[in-house]
């Protein structure tokens, strides 16, 4: 039997308020990227709260094996983001730490239920813009060719694959060319970059070569660790590739910065 009218499906209500977790790297080294992320959310009609008690997700200590220190800093974030509203993060790596590792980090700790609930509220910025807010962007910028660098943790911890590209494809004057080796790590890895400096250098040098092969003059990413690594290497070797956070790029083109 065929129904006379399609069933009524109502889209879930979009959250009207979100928290923004800026990340420690953005806070000190790339604040303009963080601000752009907050502005994008604001332009999408969401009220953005930036809790001043926030600092770092704890990943540096966790990845170095210092679990107690990581847990202490993570707990400070649990305290800084009370309630049940979504937490949006302009980094797949920090989001991955909070979403996929907090529950395990707090194993056997009285705060584990709180950590699990917190983890469920964490969203990577581009995925949130696309999947939760369904933003539409209007490009006001001049024609430009860009390539995308997904961070390993955005890809493989947060499962963010198509969302940032979907945002870029909305922009009429932006040509997105894909890097054949985009899924390969850039060699940052936090302390890896200094502990294994030679291997890291070989990796970032190969990454930059693969970016150059795309012919795009601009590399965009959603993670400032990768940008600091690839962009820092490009600058050191005198390569002109601009390395930018996607939030900054989108804000500049759609809302004039």
């Amino acid at each position, binding site marked *: 039997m065929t129904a006379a009218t399609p069933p009524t499906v109502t889209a879930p209500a979009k959250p009207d*308020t979100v928290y*923004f977790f*800026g990340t*420690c790297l*953005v*806070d*000190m*080294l790339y*604040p*303009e990227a*963080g*601000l752009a992320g*907050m502005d994008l959310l604001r332009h999408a009609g969401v009220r*953005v*709260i*930036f809790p001043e*008690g*926030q*600092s770092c997700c704890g990943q*540096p200590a*966790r990845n*170095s*094996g*210092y*679990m*107690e*220190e990581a847990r*202490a*800093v993570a*707990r*400070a974030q649990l305290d800084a983001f009370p309630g049940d509203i979504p937490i949006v993060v302009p980094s797949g790596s920090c989001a991955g730490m909070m979403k996929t590792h907090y529950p395990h980090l707090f194993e056997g700790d009285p705060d584990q239920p709180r950590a699990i609930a917190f983890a469920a509220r964490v969203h990577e910025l581009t995925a949130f813009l696309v999947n939760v807010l369904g933003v539409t962007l209007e490009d006001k910028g001049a024609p430009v060719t860009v390539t995308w660098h997904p961070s*390993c943790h955005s*890809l*493989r*911890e947060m499962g963010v694959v198509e969302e940032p590209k979907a945002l870029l494809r909305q922009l009429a004057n932006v040509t997105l060319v894909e890097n054949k080796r985009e*899924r*390969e*790590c850039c*060699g940052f*890895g*936090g*302390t*890896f970059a*200094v*502990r*294994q*400096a*030679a*291997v890291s*250098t*070989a*990796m*970032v040098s*190969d990454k930059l070569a693969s970016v150059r092969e795309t012919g795009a003059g601009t590399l965009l990413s959603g993670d400032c660790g990768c940008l*600091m690594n690839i*962009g*820092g*290497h490009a*600058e*050191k070797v005198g390569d002109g590739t601009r390395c930018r956070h996607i939030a900054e790029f989108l804000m500049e083109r759609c809302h004039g910065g």
Partner: protein
Amino acid sequence: MAADGGHHPEHAPRFAERAPDALNNPQLRRNFRRAMDGLMAKRAAQFPDPAYWAELRARGAAVKARALAKLPDLLERLETNLTANGVQVHWAETTEEANAIVLGILQQAGARTVIKGKSMVSEEMHLNAHLERHGITAVESDLGEYIIQLAGETPSHIVMPCIHKNKAEISDLFAEKIPDQPRTDDVDELTAAARRVLRERFANADAGISGVNFAVAETGTLVLIENEGNGRLSTTLPPLHIAVTGIEKVVEFLDDVPPLLALLTRSATGQPITTYVNMISGPRKAGEKDGPTAVHLVLLDAGRSRVYQDVELADTLRCIRCAACMNHCPVYTRVGGHTYNAIYPGPIGKILTPQLQGLDAAGDQPHASTLCNACAEVCPVKIPIPDLLVRLRREAVRPTETPATHLPVVKDGGAERSWKESLVWAGWRLVYTRPLLYRMVTRALAWGGNWVPASAPLMRDWTKARARPRFKPRTLHDLARERGYLNEVPK
């Protein structure tokens, strides 16, 4: 923190010190890049359907997890059923014991020459060298193993042991080592040359030694897969066959084998099936015309039962040795297998070696990773390698104890501990848990961070290949407030 966990003057060079040799060898870099690109593409072609892959690996992981959960019981059943089949079972707690057992069997049989199928456990035992010292010649019959044996090298990969060499290098080696063998760029000619030498060795060997891919407890069957037929010849032609394997290779049922085989060959070489699948279930029976008259299995522990004691680390033992993790590892691809200075290189080696050999010998290995998760993504039995790398980093600085024994869970726990690094993280914790202090420190860095000299620790290593990161005059905390973003949800 200290770029290095401490001073280890008494040690062999650590990973970071060994890496530049490989990194500065353009031929080696090209060989590995090409080989790994090829292997990744072949594997990807075998799993075009993500749903099929997800289902198959879930089955594979479940089979191995179930086998591990029942490990002590399955090992006993394996021994019972193998014995009933006429296979003699030996247990070795250490590689020394395993070597002594193999040597004893060979000596008792009066064997002087051995033909070997590929076996990483025998590499772990350094079996060839041990036999050589006792006047027994062992010849590797897997083509890759044969090549590196000629070259006097060790495997650089657990599935393709001579992947670090290209055709020209092998041609030079054969011309030098095999009598009357001219240089040739023809791969078929090179293979034929090896076959000529090996055929004679197969025919004349007093004993064959092989590894095992899966040991089936239910039926007492040793499963051995290979592509060259050398495994079949090594295990059927000589009158004596000795198989060596680790205790973690046991599975419960014969029905457990098909999903594991499907995962193993696809993940390893991108093949839906290998050319040979050997199911060895005993020596030659009365009235049979071929097969060895005696079959032995040596089951090696060598640290595995200790790994088994920790519920999280025990996942390491699920490994079916497909090498997909190394094929997809951006670090392995650049430095090759020899840089690891270990039997098992790449991601699986980085978690296995420190557990088998201890953190004193291999505590730096878990740090030779960016935690990019490429290994975990392709592991056919879902070993959470990055999580275990982090766990081992933790054991290296803050060892946990096994409650029953009060011994560190991992041998030489705490080997990488350094007071400097502990102090750095204590300071970090202090700052990052106190919002006011955090804002003071970040403001101070915003003001003065760019004056940190390029020669400072960390900065020195970073700036060798990269421009220094620049602290911005105002932090995001400052900007958020200036732009009117609220600090908390209004009541």
